[in-house]
Structure formats: C-alpha cells, structure tokens
C-alpha cells in the first residue's frame, strides 16, 4: 500500500467540477467519455469484465465501451442513450460529476437537464463535418442555460491528418457563434478520442497545438466566481425550532445559500413581506461562523422574532430583487403534454410554489437557426420559447443572467405533478446574437440583450 495519509488529506481537499457533454450521435461522445473514465482509472476490473462478457454475448469481438454508460435495458437494446446519466471520476487534483447527455435532436430537454447544474459543457464536433446545426443547437443551449465555460472538442482529428487549418477554421466559426450568444469563455481543443490525442495525454501528432488537454482543462478551470459582487440570497427551506429545555428560544431559518455571502451583523430583508432584521448568528451545520457563502447549507439566526416560513427569501437590505406577479421568461418545454396559453400551472421558484396561469406565449425559438416564430399558441416537448405567466402571489425572481439558482423555476402540471417546463427569467441570451438569420428577422434593439 503506497497511499499515505498526507495524500489522502490532499484528496479530500480537492474541489468538485460538474460538467456536461453534448454531441451528435456519431461524434464519438461515448468514446470520449469512455476514455476519460478509462484513463483516469475510473473503470474498474469487474465493470470491464461485465462489458466484455456482454459484448461477447452480442457477438462483438471488441468490448463495446458504450455498454459501460448505457444503463437501461431499452438503451442497450437500441444502442442509443435515452436519458441523462451521471458519472463520477477523480484525479489527484479534482473530483468530477459528469452529466452524460444524449445527442439526439429529440432529447434537447435532456441536455437542458444536464446543463442546468453544469459549470462547464463539452461540445463535440466531428472534424470532418465541422460546425453543423446540432453544434449550433448545443451552443445555444449552453448559452441559454448560462453555462460559464464551454469546451469545443474537435474530434476525429486523426481522420483529417491532424491538420491545423481544419481545426482553426472550426474553432473560429464556433467561437464567433458562441460568443455572440453570450458564452463567456470558450476553449477549443483538437482531439482524437479514439487514438487518445489531447484527451488525457498531449498529442505527438499535433505539435502545433499549445493548449491544454481536455482533462488538464477540466482540472484547472475555475469552479467558482467572485462571490463578493453577487446578490446574496437565502431561500428558507424549514424553520428550526427545537423547543427543548436546552434550546427553548432557538429559532433558525435553514436553507442553502443560493447566491453570494451572508455575514453576522448584516441587515436583511425578508421577502415577500418586506420585514427587516439583522443577522445575529450563522450556524454552519452545527458550527457557529461569522460568514457563509453559496452553496453552503446554513441556518440563519435573526435579532428580531419576525414571521418567516418556508418559501420566504432572505436578502441583504438594499439589495432585494423586485417582487412581481408577472413573470416573463424563456422556457424549455420538457414534458410530453403541451403547454398552452390559458393553462393553469404551478410555478416552483426556490422553495416557493405558487399558482399561476400562462397568459401569453409570444414566441417559439428554433434552435437550429435561432429563428423565432411568433405566437405559436403552445409549446411541445423540446420546444424553447418565451412565455408570460401571471402568478397568484408575488414572487421574487432574479434575472437568470445574475443568478442561475434564483432566476430559474419550474412549471408544474397541478393535476398530476408533471414537470412541464424549465424557466429562466429575463432575457434569453447575453450576447449580441447577430446570427445571420436573426439579423433578418429580429427587430433592431438598443440594448445588448436579445429578446425573441
């Protein structure tokens, strides 16, 4: 045994990166995922044996690594990935949670699911085909979901003689497109997932490339932003009142800090009531601290005994989001049943669920070319569109651009509980969005946002 206690201590000090992969059916996504898992030694002997055994039973001569990731009977039968699966691997520098999302057009909702919690998205492109519609769709979803980092992995470089101009052209086209959509950071990497070039090991075949390998980039990309400039938000999950002899007066507001930082002594306002108080203490899972930040789960204690319950939002006084009963947002429709104008729904925002009605569906977006279709009347599975919703009670929504956690919501069917749509408040994209087609159809706008 060579592992020492110091090394183990190092292991637990590593950070966690959540990322999602996106790619068309034959772009080699499974191979890339397989190689990342395999080369980081996350595929263990018994799993490989199971894959070899299953592959032999199917008459395949070489182990089919897709069987490692296709966990459902129906997926193995059809040889496609239907649903998002989460995979785990680690290096000495970092732990990873990979949302492995299907590439089929009809599973846009699954990429949305994977991207909603991702710090980074890897978009795969086949070097022979370059940027295709599906690539633009993936870039648009990453931009829409405000995934902070996007990696363009130009795969199958071995099939284009590892030629730099091929890579440069694709990287340039993608970067221009994604930047216009507002993707803040794009890293393009030429790879061959099959041959192993630039996935884990630097490629000897592409000495013209001086950047990081995929794994090196995943290990070093910053996972958190500077929180000091973020608006602090604490959605109250439960009120903790022990009412015991030991803690007769303890009254704490428990929740996971959704954005920013909270400090003892700070003046806070409770929404939607608007009452104010001061933070008298912060319990970080049994430990008293004087500052806490996202995504820590904490319990806030306040100086005044004011009425606060689940669904309330605690914010710094003077930095409160506007509360409103009229929500305008971009939604991705994730259910098989449609969403129509006039429909009664539930809107779940942080820890608060309110009744709502769909007032308008002003437009539906075609991700292929970012064209917009006015007044579609309804949205169906995998549609992305603008909606206007009237809520029965005021909600305190931030712009999704400012806070993915407090700017997002679900629309739920009250009759059977189905999650209908994933909502993002505010403007859809952050960039200039002067895609050729959009220029033709979008009215001139003074601001930088792109409203469709």
């Amino acid at each position, binding site marked *: *045994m060579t*592992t020492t206690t110091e090394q*183990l201590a190092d*292991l*637990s000090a590593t*950070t*966690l990166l959540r990322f999602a992969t996106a790619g068309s059916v034959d772009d080699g996504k499974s191979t890339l995922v397989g190689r990342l898992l395999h080369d980081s030694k996350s595929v*263990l002997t*018994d*799993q490989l044996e*199971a894959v070899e055994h*299953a592959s032999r039973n199917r008459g395949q001569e070489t182990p089919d690594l897709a069987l490692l990731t*296709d*966990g*459902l*009977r*129906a997926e*193995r039968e059809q040889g496609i990935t239907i*649903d*998002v*699966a*989460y995979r*785990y691997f680690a290096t000495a*520098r970092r*732990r990873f949670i990979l949302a492995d999302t299907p590439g089929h057009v009809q599973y846009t909702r699954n990429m*949305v699911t994977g991207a909603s*919690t991702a710090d980074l998205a890897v978009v795969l492109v086949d070097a022979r085909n370059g940027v295709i519609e599906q690539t633009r769709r993936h870039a648009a979803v990453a931009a829409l979901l405000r995934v902070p980092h996007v990696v363009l992995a130009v795969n199958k470089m071995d099939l284009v003689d590892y030629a730099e101009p091929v890579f440069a052209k694709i990287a340039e086209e993608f970067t221009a497109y994604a930047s216009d959509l507002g993707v803040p950071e794009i890293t393009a990497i030429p790879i061959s997932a099959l041959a192993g070039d630039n996935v884990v090991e630097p490629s000897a075949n592409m000495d013209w490339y001086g950047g990081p390998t995929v794994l090196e980039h995943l290990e070093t990309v*910053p*996972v*958190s932003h*500077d929180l000091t400039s973020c608006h602090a938000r604490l959605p109250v*999950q*439960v009120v*903790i009142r022990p*009412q*015991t002899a030991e803690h007769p007066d303890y009254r704490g507001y*428990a*929740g*996971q800090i959704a954005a920013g930082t909270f400090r003892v002594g700070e003046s806070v306002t409770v929404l939607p009531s608007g009452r104010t108080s001061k933070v008298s203490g912060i*319990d*970080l*899972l*049994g430990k*008293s*601290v*004087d*500052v806490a930040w*996202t*995504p820590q*789960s904490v319990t806030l204690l306040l100086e005044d005994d004011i009425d606060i319950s*689940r669904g309330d939002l605690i914010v710094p006084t003077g930095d409160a989001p506007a509360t409103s009963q009229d929500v305008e947002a971009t939604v991705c429709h*994730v259910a098989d049943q449609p969403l129509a104008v006039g429909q009664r729904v539930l809107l*779940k925002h942080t*820890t608060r669920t309110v009744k709502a009605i769909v007032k308008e569906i002003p437009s539906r977006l075609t991700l292929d070319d970012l064209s917009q279709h006015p007044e579609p009347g309804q949205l169906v599975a995998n549609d992305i569109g603008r909606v206007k919703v009237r809520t029965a009670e005021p909600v305190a929504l931030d712009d999704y651009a400012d806070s993915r956690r407090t700017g*997002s919501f*679900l629309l*739920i069917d009250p009759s059977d*509980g189905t*999650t209908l749509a*994933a909502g993002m408040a505010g403007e859809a994209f952050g960039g200039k969005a002067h895609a050729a087609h959009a220029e033709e159809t979008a009215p001139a706008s003074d601001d930088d946002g792109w409203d469709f």
Partner: protein
Amino acid sequence: MTTVAPTTGEETDSPYALSHLDALESEAVHIFREVAGEFERPVILFSGGKDSIVMLHLALKAFAPAPVPFTLLHVDTGHNFPEVLEYRDRVVAEHGLRLHVASVQEYIDRGALKERPDGTRNPLQTVPLTEKIQAERFDAVFGGGRRDEEKARAKERVFSLRDEFSQWDPRRQRPELWQLYNGRHAPGEHVRVFPLSNWTELDVWQYIAREGIALPEIYFAHERDVFKRSGMWLTAGEWGGPKDGESVEKRLIRYRTVGDMSCTGAVDSDATTLDAVIAEIAASRLTERGATRADDKMSEAAMEDRKREGYF
C-alpha cells in the same frame, strides 16, 4: 464564535470554492430539508450499513439542534449480521428515534413469501418494503443508493417518483433541473429520495473519517469463519452455509457493504482503521458491488429489474 476562513482551494479557484466533501454535504443537507419542508410522512431506510449511517448523520446535522423529523425503517431479511442489528438498536436509542421494521422472516413464516432455492433473501425484501410503505402511508422514502454503484442507479433521479405499486419506470422519469426537486405525487404514490446520489464509495469513507462516525465492526478487518461460494467469502451460519463440498476456514476479512448474509461477500483485508480502509478502497480495482454482491451478478439488468419492482 469560531471564524472559519474561506477554504483554500487550488490556485486557480476562488477562496470561496468548497472542498468536494463540503459541497456534497451541503447538497445532501439541502435535499433532507426539502423533504422535511414538502412531505407529510418521510422515512429513512436504515440498514445499519455505512450509507444509511452517513444519511442519518447528515439528517442529524441538517436539523440540529432540533431532532431529526423522520422515522427510520429497517427491512430485516432475517439473515442480518448480529453486530449490525446491535449497532442499529444502539443508534436508535441514542438519538431517541422511532424504528419501523419490515420482516422478511415474518412473511416466510406465514407463507406470504417463499424461500428461494439459492437461499438468498435480498430480492425477497421488495414485498415487505413496499407493503410497509403503503401500510404506514410513507410519502417520501430516503435511500442510501449512490449513482456510482451500478449503471441502472446511474440513471436514478434524486427525487424518484414511484406509482401506487411502488414501481420505477426509468423511461418516465421527471427531468431534474437545477436544485428544483419536484416532489408532487398523488395519494398512494411516493417519492424515493437519494441524498447520496452524487457520492462515491470513497467519498462516503472519507466523510466517515472526517466526521469521526462510528461503524459496525464488520467493516474493519477481523478473523471470521467463512467459506467460498461463487468466488466470494461468505460468513458461515444458520442461514444455509456451508453446504456439501464447501469448507469453512478462518480468514482475516472485512466487509465493504452490509446486506443479507446469504449474498454479501467479504474481502480479504488487514485494514483495521479508517485510514487503512480508505487506502485499500483507493487502490482497489474492483467496485464495491462487483466485489461483494452476488445478487447483482444474476443478469445484466438485475438491478434495473429489481428497482422497477420497487427495490431500493
């Protein structure tokens, strides 16, 4: 008051980056609190195994200084390790919790379930579990399942809706977006909740070490009478082993998982401390279930099929 300086991550990370264990802990606590806020009758599946022990520890932290607002449920196969039952009862008493027990033996005794020819009782747990859930009208059932355990579990949601027959339909799962868990369900339906979804076996062990959580002794190397069946060391006992042709020997072993004695294998090990166990797992080339669970080897879709029927 203790001041906690922001964790120092790697150079490229902001001072506000959490360590991966802190991030997993915070996420799990958020899940426990969501259930407390949205459900009427939640219950924690508690087997006395390390995952359920970690779940209980997280629940204790999530609501401190108030008591855990959930009861516990143990599905007792009748083939449990005595050390584990003893641990279970000690923990329940220590924290003043309420324990429900669903007994496989009771079902067999009254003829409601038949013993399998291979003697394993693991698949028999489904009926007592689901009937107990219906009888007690539990609407949220916490399980310690982790997505790294098995490829069907890799597809499992954190909040997973089960119909009135407790069945899982993997093709009709609700998409899970951001941290907005949708727990809505009709009467008779319930939601399985997996707060450790994103944890790996190594995370669980590192967390146990960091938090100083006590475990049943069978997790650490000890001498025990075992015999070999299907390539695994099983504990000899009244449950049905060894049979003809199988011979008992005394070996230094430990358990990586705790389940029914009839299908949970031990591994050769000299790891007597948490650090030694962690080092052993970090170096192991076998998964936890591959090394120690006979029931998962029955077919390629064994876990998926059992989960569809209502297994955890």
